[in-house]
């Protein structure tokens, strides 16, 4: 089965992010394909490498990055949602004239069309959030 995943909530604030992570891991381990993980609303906050939770807590962003490296996952952060919430890659840094960027390894910033395309290309779109 080819899945697309949509993550609508921020890490730590909401269990949706860890549920999405666990679902994605389980689907890959079961031999399914993850076409794309799309981060929307506060979900874009999963994609900052400046995250530094206490050592005895799960590092959600690093988990995504490691999963992406291992399985060549496409982790896409919505550009409009990211601009509102200060998630920046090198391209956005240049376009918006910011003094730095914070995108985590394995994530990329792109448009909402990527979510719509994921809905078209996948057999199931699974949405995590309220």
């Amino acid at each position, binding site marked *: 089965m080819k899945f697309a995943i949509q993550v*609508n909530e921020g890490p730590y604030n909401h269990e949706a992010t860890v549920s999405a992570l666990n679902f994605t891991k389980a689907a890959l381990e079961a031999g399914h394909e993850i076409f794309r993980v799309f981060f929307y*609303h506060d979900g874009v906050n999963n994609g900052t490498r400046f995250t530094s939770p206490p050592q005895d807590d799960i590092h959600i962003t690093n988990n995504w990055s490691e999963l992406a490296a291992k399985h060549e996952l496409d982790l896409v952060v919505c550009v*409009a*949602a990211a601009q509102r919430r200060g998630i920046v890659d090198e391209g956005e840094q240049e376009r918006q004239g910011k003094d730095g960027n914070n995108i985590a390894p394995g994530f990329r910033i792109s448009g909402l*069309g990527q979510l*719509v395309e994921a*809905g*078209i*290309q996948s057999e199931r779109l699974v*949405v995590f959030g309220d």
Partner: protein
Amino acid sequence: MSETKKFMYINRKAPYGTIYAWESLEVVLIGAAFEQDVSVAFVDDGIYQLCKDQDTTGLGIKNFSATYRALGDYDVNKLYIEKESLDARGLTLDDLMPLKYEDENDDWAEKDSIHVVSSQELAELFEQSDVLFNF
């Protein structure tokens, strides 16, 4: 990308308490460019998104209600309102914006985009959809 799917956007939340409604509308507008078969449902507090005379002056945040009027121009003209959600909130169709579209297959006649449906009918529409976007 030539395949056409039945897209259903489900709006469940009031327009200004959280950003879900506005960012959902952004997906609908972007998605319209992909020429899919699009429907939009409004249930629970989501029906407040279509209320008339929205005024956010006191809130100090952007009033985006006028954007719903543009949906018809994007060929998004199947808007389903759950009757039970209307009734539970003491609202009727008269409380909602009269959203219209021009039907190119009927000499551009102006028609209502909004359809009030029962919970059961909405469940059937969900069942017939290929992709459910849940906001």
